[in-house]
Protein backbone atom coordinates (compact mmCIF):
# COMPACT_ATOMS: atom_id res chain seq x y z
CA UNK A 1 0.00 0.00 0.00
CA UNK A 2 2.74 2.46 0.94
CA UNK A 3 4.64 1.72 -2.24
CA UNK A 4 1.44 2.33 -4.18
CA UNK A 5 0.94 5.71 -2.48
CA UNK A 6 4.52 6.66 -3.29
CA UNK A 7 4.11 5.50 -6.88
CA UNK A 8 0.94 7.53 -7.40
CA UNK A 9 2.50 10.58 -5.77
CA UNK A 10 5.46 10.17 -8.10
CA UNK A 11 3.05 10.61 -11.03
CA UNK A 12 0.88 13.30 -9.45
CA UNK A 13 3.68 15.71 -8.54
CA UNK A 14 5.21 15.94 -12.04
CA UNK A 15 1.70 16.36 -13.45
CA UNK A 16 1.05 19.24 -11.05
CA UNK A 17 4.33 20.91 -11.92
CA UNK A 18 3.64 20.44 -15.61
CA UNK A 19 0.20 22.01 -15.25
CA UNK A 20 1.55 25.01 -13.32
CA UNK A 21 4.35 25.53 -15.84
CA UNK A 22 2.09 25.09 -18.85
CA UNK A 23 -0.60 27.46 -17.58
CA UNK A 24 1.95 30.04 -16.50
CA UNK A 25 3.66 30.22 -19.87
CA UNK A 26 0.38 30.02 -21.77
CA UNK A 27 -1.03 32.99 -19.89
CA UNK A 28 2.21 34.95 -20.25
CA UNK A 29 2.37 34.28 -23.99
CA UNK A 30 -1.05 35.87 -24.47
CA UNK A 31 -0.83 38.50 -27.19
CA UNK A 32 -0.77 42.09 -25.89
CA UNK A 33 0.01 43.37 -22.42
CA UNK A 34 -2.57 43.22 -19.67
CA UNK A 35 -2.90 47.00 -19.51
CA UNK A 36 -3.20 47.69 -23.25
CA UNK A 37 -6.88 48.36 -22.97
CA UNK A 38 -6.56 51.02 -20.27
CA UNK A 39 -6.81 54.42 -21.88
CA UNK A 40 -3.79 56.71 -21.76
CA UNK A 41 -1.77 55.20 -18.99
CA UNK A 42 1.24 57.39 -18.35
CA UNK A 43 4.63 55.65 -18.48
CA UNK A 44 5.15 56.12 -14.73
CA UNK A 45 1.80 54.53 -13.90
CA UNK A 46 2.52 51.68 -16.28
CA UNK A 47 5.85 51.13 -14.58
CA UNK A 48 4.15 51.08 -11.20
CA UNK A 49 1.46 48.70 -12.44
CA UNK A 50 4.03 46.37 -13.93
CA UNK A 51 5.92 46.49 -10.68
CA UNK A 52 2.86 45.61 -8.64
CA UNK A 53 2.19 42.58 -10.82
CA UNK A 54 5.89 41.71 -10.99
CA UNK A 55 6.04 42.08 -14.78
CA UNK A 56 9.37 43.94 -15.03
CA UNK A 57 11.56 40.94 -14.28
CA UNK A 58 12.67 38.49 -16.97
CA UNK A 59 10.06 35.78 -17.58
CA UNK A 60 12.06 32.99 -15.96
CA UNK A 61 12.51 35.03 -12.79
CA UNK A 62 8.79 35.77 -12.76
CA UNK A 63 8.12 32.05 -13.17
CA UNK A 64 10.22 30.99 -10.22
CA UNK A 65 8.85 33.84 -8.08
CA UNK A 66 5.34 32.73 -8.95
CA UNK A 67 6.10 29.07 -8.30
CA UNK A 68 7.49 29.95 -4.88
CA UNK A 69 4.44 32.05 -4.06
CA UNK A 70 2.01 29.37 -5.23
CA UNK A 71 3.67 26.80 -3.00
CA UNK A 72 2.90 29.15 -0.11
CA UNK A 73 -0.71 29.51 -1.26
CA UNK A 74 -0.25 33.05 -2.61
CA UNK A 75 -1.63 33.56 -6.13
CA UNK A 76 -0.95 37.30 -6.26
CA UNK A 77 -3.40 40.19 -6.75
CA UNK A 78 -6.32 40.08 -9.19
CA UNK A 79 -6.08 42.26 -12.31
CA UNK A 80 -9.74 43.01 -12.30
CA UNK A 81 -10.23 43.75 -8.62
CA UNK A 82 -6.81 45.16 -7.71
CA UNK A 83 -7.66 45.52 -4.05
CA UNK A 84 -8.29 41.81 -3.70
CA UNK A 85 -5.91 38.92 -3.97
CA UNK A 86 -6.71 35.82 -5.99
CA UNK A 87 -6.31 33.71 -2.87
CA UNK A 88 -8.99 35.82 -1.17
CA UNK A 89 -11.40 35.38 -4.08
CA UNK A 90 -10.76 31.62 -4.06
CA UNK A 91 -11.47 31.42 -0.35
CA UNK A 92 -14.77 33.26 -0.88
CA UNK A 93 -15.91 31.06 -3.76
CA UNK A 94 -14.64 27.68 -2.69
CA UNK A 95 -16.98 26.94 0.25
CA UNK A 96 -20.01 27.66 -1.92
CA UNK A 97 -18.77 25.41 -4.72
CA UNK A 98 -17.97 22.67 -2.23
CA UNK A 99 -21.41 22.93 -0.66
CA UNK A 100 -23.05 22.64 -4.07
CA UNK A 101 -20.85 19.68 -5.02
CA UNK A 102 -21.59 17.98 -1.71
CA UNK A 103 -25.37 18.30 -2.12
CA UNK A 104 -25.10 17.09 -5.70
CA UNK A 105 -23.08 14.02 -4.77
CA UNK A 106 -25.44 13.16 -1.88
CA UNK A 107 -28.41 13.53 -4.21
CA UNK A 108 -26.65 11.36 -6.79
CA UNK A 109 -25.75 8.64 -4.28
CA UNK A 110 -29.18 8.44 -2.73
CA UNK A 111 -31.13 8.37 -5.97
CA UNK A 112 -28.57 6.29 -7.86
CA UNK A 113 -28.13 3.57 -5.25
CA UNK A 114 -31.86 3.13 -4.68
CA UNK A 115 -32.57 2.98 -8.42
CA UNK A 116 -29.64 0.62 -9.02
CA UNK A 117 -30.70 -1.76 -6.25
CA UNK A 118 -34.30 -1.86 -7.45
CA UNK A 119 -33.27 -2.66 -11.01
CA UNK A 120 -30.75 -5.30 -9.93
CA UNK A 121 -33.28 -7.22 -7.84
CA UNK A 122 -35.49 -8.05 -10.83
CA UNK A 123 -33.20 -7.88 -13.87
CA UNK A 124 -34.77 -7.72 -17.33
CA UNK A 125 -38.21 -6.77 -16.07
CA UNK A 126 -39.98 -3.42 -16.06
CA UNK A 127 -38.38 -2.73 -12.63
CA UNK A 128 -35.05 -2.92 -14.43
CA UNK A 129 -35.84 -1.29 -17.77
CA UNK A 130 -37.63 1.80 -16.50
CA UNK A 131 -34.91 3.04 -14.08
CA UNK A 132 -32.17 2.15 -16.57
CA UNK A 133 -33.88 4.00 -19.42
CA UNK A 134 -34.28 7.03 -17.20
CA UNK A 135 -30.62 6.69 -16.25
CA UNK A 136 -29.62 6.60 -19.92
CA UNK A 137 -31.59 9.81 -20.44
CA UNK A 138 -29.90 11.33 -17.39
CA UNK A 139 -26.50 10.60 -18.86
CA UNK A 140 -27.35 11.87 -22.32
CA UNK A 141 -29.01 15.15 -21.33
CA UNK A 142 -26.24 17.62 -20.50
CA UNK A 143 -26.45 20.18 -17.71
CA UNK A 144 -26.57 23.03 -20.21
CA UNK A 145 -29.96 21.67 -21.31
CA UNK A 146 -31.18 20.27 -18.00
CA UNK A 147 -30.52 23.49 -16.03
CA UNK A 148 -32.39 25.90 -18.29
CA UNK A 149 -35.19 23.36 -18.84
CA UNK A 150 -35.74 22.79 -15.12
CA UNK A 151 -35.70 26.56 -14.62
CA UNK A 152 -38.25 27.02 -17.37
CA UNK A 153 -40.60 24.33 -16.05
CA UNK A 154 -40.33 24.62 -12.26
CA UNK A 155 -39.19 28.22 -11.94
CA UNK A 156 -41.08 30.07 -14.63
CA UNK A 157 -44.08 28.03 -15.77
CA UNK A 158 -45.04 26.38 -12.47
CA UNK A 159 -43.42 29.06 -10.32
CA UNK A 160 -42.56 26.53 -7.59
CA UNK A 161 -38.89 27.24 -7.01
CA UNK A 162 -36.59 30.26 -7.17
CA UNK A 163 -34.31 30.31 -10.19
CA UNK A 164 -31.29 32.27 -9.00
CA UNK A 165 -29.23 32.83 -5.88
CA UNK A 166 -27.68 30.65 -3.24
CA UNK A 167 -29.03 30.70 0.29
CA UNK A 168 -31.04 33.90 -0.23
CA UNK A 169 -34.52 32.42 -0.57
CA UNK A 170 -35.52 29.04 0.85
CA UNK A 171 -35.45 26.39 -1.86
CA UNK A 172 -33.00 28.12 -4.16
CA UNK A 173 -30.47 25.33 -3.66
CA UNK A 174 -32.77 22.63 -5.04
CA UNK A 175 -32.59 23.25 -8.79
CA UNK A 176 -28.78 23.68 -8.91
CA UNK A 177 -28.34 20.48 -6.90
CA UNK A 178 -30.57 18.49 -9.23
CA UNK A 179 -28.95 19.99 -12.34
CA UNK A 180 -25.47 19.15 -11.20
CA UNK A 181 -26.31 15.79 -9.63
CA UNK A 182 -28.54 14.11 -12.22
CA UNK A 183 -25.85 12.77 -14.53
CA UNK A 184 -23.96 11.34 -11.55
CA UNK A 185 -27.13 9.79 -10.15
CA UNK A 186 -27.51 8.05 -13.50
CA UNK A 187 -23.93 6.76 -13.44
CA UNK A 188 -24.36 5.60 -9.82
CA UNK A 189 -27.52 3.73 -10.76
CA UNK A 190 -25.74 1.89 -13.57
CA UNK A 191 -22.70 1.09 -11.46
CA UNK A 192 -24.81 -0.08 -8.50
CA UNK A 193 -26.85 -2.33 -10.77
CA UNK A 194 -23.70 -3.88 -12.25
CA UNK A 195 -22.06 -4.39 -8.88
CA UNK A 196 -25.19 -5.81 -7.27
CA UNK A 197 -25.88 -8.23 -10.11
CA UNK A 198 -22.43 -9.68 -9.64
CA UNK A 199 -22.79 -10.04 -5.86
CA UNK A 200 -26.37 -11.33 -5.78
CA UNK A 201 -25.36 -14.49 -7.65
CA UNK A 202 -22.72 -15.47 -5.13
CA UNK A 203 -22.86 -18.31 -2.66
CA UNK A 204 -22.84 -16.26 0.52
CA UNK A 205 -26.04 -14.52 -0.58
CA UNK A 206 -27.69 -17.88 -1.18
CA UNK A 207 -26.52 -18.97 2.26
CA UNK A 208 -27.93 -15.85 3.84
CA UNK A 209 -31.27 -16.44 2.15
CA UNK A 210 -31.21 -20.12 3.11
CA UNK A 211 -30.70 -19.15 6.72
CA UNK A 212 -34.00 -17.32 6.49
CA UNK A 213 -32.78 -13.74 6.73
CA UNK A 214 -35.25 -11.14 5.59
CA UNK A 215 -34.83 -9.95 2.01
CA UNK A 216 -34.14 -6.44 3.32
CA UNK A 217 -31.28 -7.69 5.48
CA UNK A 218 -29.83 -9.79 2.69
CA UNK A 219 -29.83 -6.88 0.28
CA UNK A 220 -28.89 -3.99 2.53
CA UNK A 221 -26.49 -5.63 4.96
CA UNK A 222 -24.89 -8.41 2.95
CA UNK A 223 -25.08 -7.59 -0.74
CA UNK A 224 -24.77 -3.81 -0.73
CA UNK A 225 -21.38 -3.87 0.97
CA UNK A 226 -19.72 -5.57 -1.96
CA UNK A 227 -22.09 -4.26 -4.58
CA UNK A 228 -21.12 -0.65 -3.95
CA UNK A 229 -17.40 -1.07 -4.69
CA UNK A 230 -17.70 0.32 -8.25
CA UNK A 231 -19.64 3.32 -6.92
CA UNK A 232 -16.92 4.14 -4.39
CA UNK A 233 -14.25 3.91 -7.04
CA UNK A 234 -16.32 6.31 -9.14
CA UNK A 235 -16.53 8.97 -6.39
CA UNK A 236 -13.11 10.49 -7.12
CA UNK A 237 -13.62 11.08 -10.84
CA UNK A 238 -17.15 12.20 -9.98
CA UNK A 239 -15.90 14.89 -7.60
CA UNK A 240 -13.50 16.08 -10.30
CA UNK A 241 -16.35 16.15 -12.81
CA UNK A 242 -18.60 18.00 -10.38
CA UNK A 243 -16.04 20.78 -10.05
CA UNK A 244 -15.96 21.25 -13.83
CA UNK A 245 -19.76 20.99 -13.92
CA UNK A 246 -19.95 23.82 -11.41
CA UNK A 247 -18.79 26.25 -14.14
CA UNK A 248 -22.04 25.74 -15.99
CA UNK A 249 -24.41 25.31 -13.06
CA UNK A 250 -23.11 28.34 -11.18
CA UNK A 251 -23.35 30.43 -14.35
CA UNK A 252 -26.94 29.32 -15.02
CA UNK A 253 -28.20 29.91 -11.50
CA UNK A 254 -26.08 32.94 -10.64
CA UNK A 255 -24.33 31.25 -7.73
CA UNK A 256 -21.32 33.23 -6.45
CA UNK A 257 -19.00 30.21 -6.31
CA UNK A 258 -15.56 29.48 -7.64
CA UNK A 259 -16.88 28.07 -10.93
CA UNK A 260 -18.57 31.35 -11.79
CA UNK A 261 -15.52 33.35 -10.73
CA UNK A 262 -13.51 31.22 -13.11
CA UNK A 263 -15.82 31.78 -16.06
CA UNK A 264 -16.01 35.50 -15.29
CA UNK A 265 -12.25 35.75 -15.07
CA UNK A 266 -12.02 34.02 -18.44
CA UNK A 267 -14.49 36.54 -19.83
CA UNK A 268 -12.81 39.60 -18.33
CA UNK A 269 -9.34 38.37 -19.22
CA UNK A 270 -8.38 38.68 -15.58
CA UNK A 271 -5.09 36.91 -16.22
CA UNK A 272 -3.86 36.44 -12.65
CA UNK A 273 -7.28 35.17 -11.62
CA UNK A 274 -7.42 32.69 -14.53
CA UNK A 275 -3.91 31.52 -13.79
CA UNK A 276 -4.56 31.12 -10.07
CA UNK A 277 -7.93 29.39 -10.38
CA UNK A 278 -6.71 27.12 -13.20
CA UNK A 279 -3.87 25.92 -11.04
CA UNK A 280 -6.11 25.61 -8.01
CA UNK A 281 -8.77 23.62 -9.88
CA UNK A 282 -6.12 21.39 -11.39
CA UNK A 283 -4.67 20.65 -7.96
CA UNK A 284 -8.12 19.78 -6.64
CA UNK A 285 -8.92 17.49 -9.55
CA UNK A 286 -5.55 15.76 -9.41
CA UNK A 287 -5.88 15.21 -5.65
CA UNK A 288 -9.37 13.78 -5.99
CA UNK A 289 -8.19 11.37 -8.64
CA UNK A 290 -5.26 10.37 -6.46
CA UNK A 291 -7.53 9.85 -3.47
CA UNK A 292 -10.01 7.73 -5.38
CA UNK A 293 -7.20 5.59 -6.80
CA UNK A 294 -6.04 4.90 -3.27
CA UNK A 295 -9.53 4.15 -1.98
CA UNK A 296 -10.15 1.80 -4.91
CA UNK A 297 -6.85 0.07 -4.24
CA UNK A 298 -7.59 -0.38 -0.56
CA UNK A 299 -10.95 -1.95 -1.45
CA UNK A 300 -9.61 -4.23 -4.15
CA UNK A 301 -6.51 -6.23 -3.18
CA UNK A 302 -5.84 -7.12 -6.81
CA UNK A 303 -5.12 -3.47 -7.66
CA UNK A 304 -2.82 -3.09 -4.68
CA UNK A 305 -0.07 -5.30 -6.02
CA UNK A 306 0.18 -3.69 -9.43
Amino acid at each position, binding site marked *: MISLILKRLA*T*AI*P*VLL*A*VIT*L*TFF*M*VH*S*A*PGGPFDEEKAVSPEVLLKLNERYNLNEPLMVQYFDYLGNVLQGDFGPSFRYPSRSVTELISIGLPITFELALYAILFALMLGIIAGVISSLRP*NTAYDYIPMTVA*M*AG*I*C*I*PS*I*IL*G*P*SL*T*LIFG*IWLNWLPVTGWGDIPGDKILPTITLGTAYAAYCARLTRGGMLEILNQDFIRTARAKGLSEFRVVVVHALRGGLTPVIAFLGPAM*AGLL*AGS*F*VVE*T*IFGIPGLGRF*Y*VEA*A*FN*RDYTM*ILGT*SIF*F*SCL*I*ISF*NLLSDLVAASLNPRLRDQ
Partner: protein
Amino acid sequence: MNTSSSSLTKKAFERLVSNKLSLFGGIYVLLLITLAIFTPLIAPYDYAYQDLSLGPVGPTTDHLLGTDTLGRDLLTRMLYGSRISLMVGFLATMVALVIGVLWGTIAGFAGGRVDAIMMRIVDVLYGIPFIILIILLMVIFGRNLVLLFMAIGAVEWLTMSRIVRSQVMSLSQQEFVLAAEAMGVSKKDIIFRHLIPNAIGPVIVYATLTVPQIMLLEAFLSFLGLGVQAPMSSWGLLIRDGAVSMEEYWWLLVFPSLAFSLTLFSLNFIGDGLRDALDPRTGPN
Protein backbone atom coordinates in the same frame (compact mmCIF):
# COMPACT_ATOMS: atom_id res chain seq x y z
CA MET B 1 -10.81 -14.39 -47.04
CA ASN B 2 -12.63 -11.53 -48.66
CA THR B 3 -16.02 -13.27 -48.74
CA SER B 4 -15.81 -14.34 -45.12
CA SER B 5 -14.94 -10.81 -43.99
CA SER B 6 -17.76 -9.28 -46.00
CA SER B 7 -20.24 -11.77 -44.59
CA LEU B 8 -19.01 -10.95 -41.10
CA THR B 9 -19.60 -7.28 -41.86
CA LYS B 10 -22.99 -8.14 -43.27
CA LYS B 11 -23.96 -10.09 -40.16
CA ALA B 12 -22.82 -7.26 -37.94
CA PHE B 13 -24.85 -4.85 -40.05
CA GLU B 14 -27.93 -7.06 -39.78
CA ARG B 15 -27.53 -7.22 -36.03
CA LEU B 16 -27.14 -3.45 -35.89
CA VAL B 17 -30.28 -2.81 -37.95
CA SER B 18 -32.33 -5.27 -35.92
CA ASN B 19 -31.66 -3.11 -32.86
CA LYS B 20 -34.50 -0.59 -33.10
CA LEU B 21 -32.85 2.13 -31.03
CA SER B 22 -29.66 1.99 -33.10
CA LEU B 23 -31.69 2.00 -36.29
CA PHE B 24 -33.55 5.09 -35.11
CA GLY B 25 -30.28 6.72 -34.08
CA GLY B 26 -28.68 5.88 -37.41
CA ILE B 27 -31.56 7.33 -39.42
CA TYR B 28 -31.64 10.50 -37.32
CA VAL B 29 -27.90 11.08 -37.61
CA LEU B 30 -27.87 10.39 -41.36
CA LEU B 31 -30.75 12.82 -41.83
CA LEU B 32 -28.94 15.39 -39.74
CA ILE B 33 -25.70 15.00 -41.69
CA THR B 34 -27.59 15.33 -45.00
CA LEU B 35 -29.33 18.49 -43.78
CA ALA B 36 -26.04 19.90 -42.54
CA ILE B 37 -24.27 19.25 -45.85
CA PHE B 38 -27.02 20.89 -47.92
CA THR B 39 -27.73 23.71 -45.46
CA PRO B 40 -26.63 26.54 -47.80
CA LEU B 41 -29.12 25.26 -50.39
CA ILE B 42 -32.09 24.51 -48.16
CA ALA B 43 -31.84 27.06 -45.35
CA PRO B 44 -34.80 29.43 -45.64
CA TYR B 45 -32.70 32.53 -44.86
CA ASP B 46 -29.08 33.66 -44.84
CA TYR B 47 -27.36 32.90 -41.55
CA ALA B 48 -26.50 36.53 -40.83
CA TYR B 49 -29.89 37.85 -41.99
CA GLN B 50 -31.74 39.67 -39.27
CA ASP B 51 -35.07 41.44 -39.30
CA LEU B 52 -34.90 43.80 -36.34
CA SER B 53 -38.34 45.26 -37.04
CA LEU B 54 -39.81 41.76 -36.73
CA GLY B 55 -38.12 40.88 -33.44
CA PRO B 56 -38.82 37.59 -31.71
CA VAL B 57 -41.92 35.74 -32.92
CA GLY B 58 -43.06 32.20 -32.19
CA PRO B 59 -43.35 29.50 -34.85
CA THR B 60 -45.22 30.73 -37.95
CA THR B 61 -45.40 29.64 -41.57
CA ASP B 62 -42.70 32.15 -42.50
CA HIS B 63 -40.42 31.05 -39.67
CA LEU B 64 -41.18 27.43 -38.90
CA LEU B 65 -39.39 27.46 -35.55
CA GLY B 66 -39.78 31.17 -34.84
CA THR B 67 -37.16 33.92 -34.68
CA ASP B 68 -34.77 35.13 -32.00
CA THR B 69 -34.54 38.52 -30.33
CA LEU B 70 -32.72 40.01 -33.34
CA GLY B 71 -35.31 38.63 -35.75
CA ARG B 72 -33.03 35.86 -37.02
CA ASP B 73 -34.75 32.71 -38.27
CA LEU B 74 -34.24 29.97 -35.67
CA LEU B 75 -34.45 27.07 -38.15
CA THR B 76 -31.70 28.67 -40.25
CA ARG B 77 -29.51 29.20 -37.22
CA MET B 78 -30.08 25.63 -36.08
CA LEU B 79 -29.15 24.27 -39.52
CA TYR B 80 -25.96 26.31 -39.62
CA GLY B 81 -25.33 25.42 -35.98
CA SER B 82 -25.60 21.72 -36.76
CA ARG B 83 -22.85 22.14 -39.36
CA ILE B 84 -20.45 23.51 -36.78
CA SER B 85 -21.45 21.09 -34.02
CA LEU B 86 -21.18 18.06 -36.29
CA MET B 87 -17.97 19.28 -37.88
CA VAL B 88 -16.33 19.78 -34.49
CA GLY B 89 -17.58 16.37 -33.38
CA PHE B 90 -16.39 14.42 -36.41
CA LEU B 91 -13.17 16.26 -37.22
CA ALA B 92 -11.91 16.22 -33.64
CA THR B 93 -12.78 12.52 -33.46
CA MET B 94 -10.71 11.98 -36.61
CA VAL B 95 -7.76 13.77 -35.01
CA ALA B 96 -8.16 11.62 -31.89
CA LEU B 97 -8.55 8.49 -33.98
CA VAL B 98 -5.37 8.99 -35.99
CA ILE B 99 -3.19 9.87 -33.02
CA GLY B 100 -4.69 7.20 -30.76
CA VAL B 101 -4.50 4.36 -33.27
CA LEU B 102 -0.92 5.11 -34.29
CA TRP B 103 0.25 5.62 -30.71
CA GLY B 104 -1.47 2.50 -29.39
CA THR B 105 -0.35 0.30 -32.29
CA ILE B 106 3.26 1.34 -32.06
CA ALA B 107 3.32 0.89 -28.28
CA GLY B 108 1.58 -2.47 -28.39
CA PHE B 109 3.67 -3.79 -31.28
CA ALA B 110 7.03 -2.54 -30.06
CA GLY B 111 6.51 -3.73 -26.49
CA GLY B 112 9.30 -3.58 -23.93
CA ARG B 113 10.82 -0.25 -23.01
CA VAL B 114 9.25 1.71 -25.88
CA ASP B 115 5.82 0.52 -24.77
CA ALA B 116 6.54 1.35 -21.14
CA ILE B 117 7.63 4.90 -21.99
CA MET B 118 4.77 5.56 -24.38
CA MET B 119 2.11 4.33 -21.98
CA ARG B 120 3.72 6.20 -19.10
CA ILE B 121 3.28 9.39 -21.14
CA VAL B 122 -0.39 8.50 -21.60
CA ASP B 123 -0.73 7.94 -17.84
CA VAL B 124 0.74 11.35 -17.07
CA LEU B 125 -1.42 13.11 -19.68
CA TYR B 126 -4.48 11.40 -18.20
CA GLY B 127 -3.84 13.24 -14.96
CA ILE B 128 -4.05 16.70 -16.54
CA PRO B 129 -7.45 18.39 -16.25
CA PHE B 130 -7.83 19.25 -19.93
CA ILE B 131 -11.10 21.11 -19.68
CA ILE B 132 -9.18 23.83 -17.88
CA LEU B 133 -6.41 23.89 -20.47
CA ILE B 134 -8.93 24.08 -23.30
CA ILE B 135 -10.69 27.01 -21.61
CA LEU B 136 -7.30 28.69 -21.18
CA LEU B 137 -6.46 28.13 -24.85
CA MET B 138 -9.75 29.68 -25.93
CA VAL B 139 -9.24 32.68 -23.65
CA ILE B 140 -5.69 33.37 -24.69
CA PHE B 141 -5.66 32.65 -28.40
CA GLY B 142 -9.18 33.77 -29.21
CA ARG B 143 -12.15 31.63 -30.12
CA ASN B 144 -10.54 29.92 -33.05
CA LEU B 145 -12.39 26.91 -34.45
CA VAL B 146 -9.35 25.15 -35.88
CA LEU B 147 -7.61 25.46 -32.55
CA LEU B 148 -10.71 24.06 -30.88
CA PHE B 149 -10.62 20.95 -33.11
CA MET B 150 -6.95 20.41 -32.50
CA ALA B 151 -7.17 20.94 -28.76
CA ILE B 152 -10.14 18.64 -28.26
CA GLY B 153 -8.79 15.99 -30.61
CA ALA B 154 -5.43 16.09 -28.94
CA VAL B 155 -7.14 15.35 -25.62
CA GLU B 156 -9.50 12.58 -26.60
CA TRP B 157 -6.93 10.20 -28.11
CA LEU B 158 -5.72 8.87 -24.75
CA THR B 159 -8.39 6.22 -24.15
CA MET B 160 -8.27 5.30 -27.83
CA SER B 161 -4.56 4.54 -27.60
CA ARG B 162 -5.10 2.29 -24.58
CA ILE B 163 -7.83 0.32 -26.34
CA VAL B 164 -5.75 -0.11 -29.49
CA ARG B 165 -2.67 -1.11 -27.54
CA SER B 166 -4.40 -3.93 -25.69
CA GLN B 167 -5.95 -5.15 -28.96
CA VAL B 168 -2.61 -5.09 -30.73
CA MET B 169 -0.85 -6.85 -27.89
CA SER B 170 -3.23 -9.79 -27.98
CA LEU B 171 -3.25 -9.82 -31.79
CA SER B 172 0.51 -9.86 -32.16
CA GLN B 173 0.67 -13.13 -30.20
CA GLN B 174 -1.56 -14.84 -32.75
CA GLU B 175 -0.32 -17.24 -35.39
CA PHE B 176 -1.06 -15.18 -38.47
CA VAL B 177 1.10 -12.32 -37.21
CA LEU B 178 3.88 -14.70 -36.20
CA ALA B 179 3.61 -16.30 -39.63
CA ALA B 180 3.82 -12.93 -41.34
CA GLU B 181 6.88 -12.08 -39.26
CA ALA B 182 8.48 -15.46 -40.10
CA MET B 183 7.87 -14.83 -43.78
CA GLY B 184 9.80 -11.59 -43.52
CA VAL B 185 6.93 -9.12 -43.93
CA SER B 186 8.16 -5.65 -43.01
CA LYS B 187 7.07 -4.13 -39.68
CA LYS B 188 5.26 -1.35 -41.46
CA ASP B 189 3.22 -3.84 -43.47
CA ILE B 190 2.44 -5.93 -40.42
CA ILE B 191 1.16 -2.86 -38.62
CA PHE B 192 -0.89 -1.44 -41.47
CA ARG B 193 -2.05 -4.65 -43.19
CA HIS B 194 -2.56 -7.00 -40.26
CA LEU B 195 -2.74 -5.29 -36.91
CA ILE B 196 -4.76 -2.13 -37.54
CA PRO B 197 -7.50 -3.74 -39.69
CA ASN B 198 -8.03 -6.44 -37.06
CA ALA B 199 -8.10 -4.03 -34.15
CA ILE B 200 -10.59 -1.73 -35.82
CA GLY B 201 -13.83 -3.07 -34.26
CA PRO B 202 -13.52 -1.67 -30.75
CA VAL B 203 -11.95 1.45 -32.23
CA ILE B 204 -15.05 2.15 -34.31
CA VAL B 205 -17.26 1.64 -31.26
CA TYR B 206 -15.19 3.96 -29.15
CA ALA B 207 -14.98 6.56 -31.93
CA THR B 208 -18.79 6.58 -32.22
CA LEU B 209 -19.04 7.22 -28.51
CA THR B 210 -16.35 9.94 -28.72
CA VAL B 211 -18.32 12.05 -31.20
CA PRO B 212 -21.11 12.95 -28.74
CA GLN B 213 -18.55 13.60 -25.99
CA ILE B 214 -16.76 16.10 -28.18
CA MET B 215 -19.98 17.76 -29.33
CA LEU B 216 -20.85 18.10 -25.68
CA LEU B 217 -17.52 19.71 -24.91
CA GLU B 218 -18.00 22.21 -27.73
CA ALA B 219 -21.53 22.98 -26.55
CA PHE B 220 -20.22 23.41 -23.01
CA LEU B 221 -17.62 25.95 -24.15
CA SER B 222 -20.03 27.81 -26.43
CA PHE B 223 -22.60 27.88 -23.64
CA LEU B 224 -20.10 29.57 -21.36
CA GLY B 225 -19.39 32.08 -24.15
CA LEU B 226 -15.90 30.71 -24.76
CA GLY B 227 -16.52 28.80 -27.97
CA VAL B 228 -18.24 29.72 -31.23
CA GLN B 229 -19.25 33.40 -31.57
CA ALA B 230 -22.28 34.99 -33.28
CA PRO B 231 -23.22 35.47 -36.11
CA MET B 232 -21.89 31.94 -36.53
CA SER B 233 -23.89 29.50 -34.50
CA SER B 234 -23.56 26.15 -32.84
CA TRP B 235 -26.04 24.28 -30.71
CA GLY B 236 -24.29 25.24 -27.52
CA LEU B 237 -24.49 28.90 -28.48
CA LEU B 238 -28.18 28.61 -29.43
CA ILE B 239 -28.98 26.93 -26.10
CA ARG B 240 -27.14 29.75 -24.35
CA ASP B 241 -29.19 32.35 -26.25
CA GLY B 242 -32.30 30.36 -25.48
CA ALA B 243 -31.50 30.15 -21.78
CA VAL B 244 -31.05 33.92 -21.65
CA SER B 245 -34.43 34.74 -23.13
CA MET B 246 -36.51 31.69 -22.22
CA GLU B 247 -38.74 33.62 -19.85
CA GLU B 248 -40.56 35.30 -22.75
CA TYR B 249 -39.50 33.20 -25.73
CA TRP B 250 -39.55 29.52 -24.77
CA TRP B 251 -39.05 28.24 -28.31
CA LEU B 252 -35.53 29.63 -28.41
CA LEU B 253 -34.56 27.15 -25.69
CA VAL B 254 -36.82 24.22 -26.50
CA PHE B 255 -36.03 23.57 -30.18
CA PRO B 256 -32.23 23.68 -30.03
CA SER B 257 -32.29 21.63 -26.80
CA LEU B 258 -34.47 18.96 -28.41
CA ALA B 259 -32.30 18.75 -31.51
CA PHE B 260 -29.13 18.50 -29.46
CA SER B 261 -30.50 15.93 -26.98
CA LEU B 262 -31.78 13.76 -29.81
CA THR B 263 -28.36 13.89 -31.46
CA LEU B 264 -26.61 12.85 -28.26
CA PHE B 265 -29.12 10.03 -27.71
CA SER B 266 -28.78 8.82 -31.29
CA LEU B 267 -25.01 8.75 -31.27
CA ASN B 268 -24.98 6.88 -27.96
CA PHE B 269 -27.53 4.37 -29.27
CA ILE B 270 -25.45 3.81 -32.40
CA GLY B 271 -22.35 3.26 -30.28
CA ASP B 272 -24.10 0.77 -27.99
CA GLY B 273 -25.66 -0.99 -30.96
CA LEU B 274 -22.31 -1.21 -32.74
CA ARG B 275 -20.70 -2.70 -29.65
CA ASP B 276 -23.34 -5.42 -29.51
CA ALA B 277 -23.22 -5.97 -33.27
CA LEU B 278 -19.45 -6.25 -33.54
CA ASP B 279 -19.09 -8.45 -30.49
CA PRO B 280 -21.63 -11.29 -30.61
CA ARG B 281 -20.64 -12.42 -27.11
CA THR B 282 -22.24 -9.39 -25.46
CA GLY B 283 -25.66 -9.63 -27.03
CA PRO B 284 -28.45 -7.24 -26.14
CA ASN B 285 -29.24 -9.48 -23.16
